[in-house]
């Protein structure tokens, strides 16, 4: 398949005797929202941690197709995951920079290109023209995204002072400022009310359709999963128990069993 973005083969992650991920194989496409669901402790976040270099996978391979350039995600860790591989992620809990303004949060995500333009900040100190130009561009990108999530008028407020739902959205657009190829979202709808969830669906669909960024989504909120997923991977005890479209997943007996238990 030419539009496969992420290709995970036989991924296994062991912590001592505990097998957190057991021989997991799945792929995600460029223009798809791929959801990973499963009961608590199924190993969903561990998959993300392997993808973004927090854990070193015990076995298996993970490849990212970046403009027909196959990148081995196992080779990237720390800041290179975002900078070189183009993978962005969010966490279950909100991890904005709460003491920095909303706009600054967006600018931090564009650090690398600004750092080059500013000659490692020296030109930035003397306000050189080329740097000001680049900074203006970064500012435009930030404003563009803030407009989309409706936070333009709060750009100068501290990110920590925003309401919870807005912080969630800000986290996602901040990750988009890295210009990632793959966006990994860990429970973005956790704690959102119905209207905020609907807004989130809209935002994620926009990112998928207009920005052509592949999204990997861990989510418990089924209204989000069923509403926007193109493809669903179901995990239980680290094993993939089902894979298919949202509709197929909803009707699958294995999935129902994992979530609700068996009928005696």
């Amino acid at each position, binding site marked *: 398949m030419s539009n496969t973005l992420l290709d995970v083969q036989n991924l296994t992650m062991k912590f001592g005797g505990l097998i957190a991920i057991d021989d997991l194989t799945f792929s995600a496409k460029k223009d798809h929202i791929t959801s990973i669901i499963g009961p608590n402790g199924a190993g969903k976040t561990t998959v993300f941690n392997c993808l973004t270099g927090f854990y070193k996978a015990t076995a298996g391979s993970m490849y990212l197709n970046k403009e027909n350039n196959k990148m081995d995600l196992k080779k990237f860790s720390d800041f290179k995951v*975002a900078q070189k591989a183009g993978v962005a992620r969010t966490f279950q809990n909100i991890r904005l920079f709460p003491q920095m303004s909303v706009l600054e949060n967006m600018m931090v995500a564009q650090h*690398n290109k600004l750092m080059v333009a500013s000659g490692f900040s020296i030109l930035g100190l003397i306000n050189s023209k080329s740097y000001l130009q680049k900074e203006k561009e970064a500012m435009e990108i930030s404003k563009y995204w803030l407009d989309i999530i409706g936070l333009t008028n709060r750009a100068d407020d501290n990110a920590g002072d925003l309401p919870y739902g807005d912080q969630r959205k800000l986290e996602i657009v901040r990750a988009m400022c890295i210009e990632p190829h793959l966006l990994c979202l860990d429970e973005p709808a956790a704690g959102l009310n119905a209207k905020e969830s609907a807004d989130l669906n809209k935002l994620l669909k926009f990112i998928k359709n207009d920005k052509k960024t592949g999204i990997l989504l861990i989510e418990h909120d089924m209204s989000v999963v069923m509403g926007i997923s193109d493809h669903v991977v179901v995990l239980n005890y680290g094993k993939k128990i089902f894979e298919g479209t949202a509709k197929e997943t909803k009707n699958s007996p294995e999935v129902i069993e994992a979530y609700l238990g068996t009928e005696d």
Partner: protein
Amino acid sequence: MEYFLQQLINGITLGSVYGLIAIGYTMVYGIIGMINFAHGDIFMVGAFVALISFILFALTGISLPIVLILVLLIAMVFTACYGWTVEKLAYKPLRKSFRLAPLISALGMSIVLQNYVQAAQGARIKTLQPVIQGGFNFFKESDFVVTLSYLQIFIVLVTIVLMAIFTLLITRTDLGRAQRACEQDRTMTALMGINVDRTISMTFIIGSSLASVAGVMFVMYYGVIDFYIGFLAGIKAFTAAVLGGIGSIPGAMLGGLLIGLIETFWSGYISIEYKDIAAFTTLVIVLIFFPTGFLGKPDIEKV
């Protein structure tokens, strides 16, 4: 009144030196949450580099303003290398270790630097002839003449200029933005594609160069240094950083000024022999009554 004015002038001068060192403490604490106890000795290294450069330049007969600029630059570059190396050798390998490990390593590094300078330069005090002489005299007709020396003006001016540049760097440039981001969440900063290790190295480089400027001023102001000056000056600057609120950069500047003033007024009005007690009493009082300092942010845990 005249006496008071004189103490005020001296206090501001001394406060500038402490403020410059205190910034290094507060920045490092802000970004990696440790007290860099070797920072005082980095300041001492800066003072020695300055002393050696001054003596070497005295042989060449270059004019004074150029010598001053050159000495400042040489001291900054050399001392920044020391600061960078200390971080790479003693702190970076321990970054993922338990919290006390880098602190112990810092104390060790402090002893290493002191002994290294002692071995390389000898244990005796070193003196420098006054580089900038003269000044303004006020209240000439009264019985106490207030002196504002050119050197004091130079020290305060250089401090103001450096602090202005430094504040711009932190608040306006992307390096400063990355540093502030690291202070709040290092993992997330790395996930934004920012090289956290390099940002931390830059923090040490900037902090060390500011300390080296303080060292240059110290050797010019007092004219006498030895390998041990870093300990007292370092602890006092640390007190200044705590007083202003550790982690807060304006706090470090304010704290430095206050410690300088407290120490000078104590020496001027109470006892010059016990001047070190003033700074340390302040440290104890501040830690008991204002543990977050004047401009520090309290750690509020949301439950």
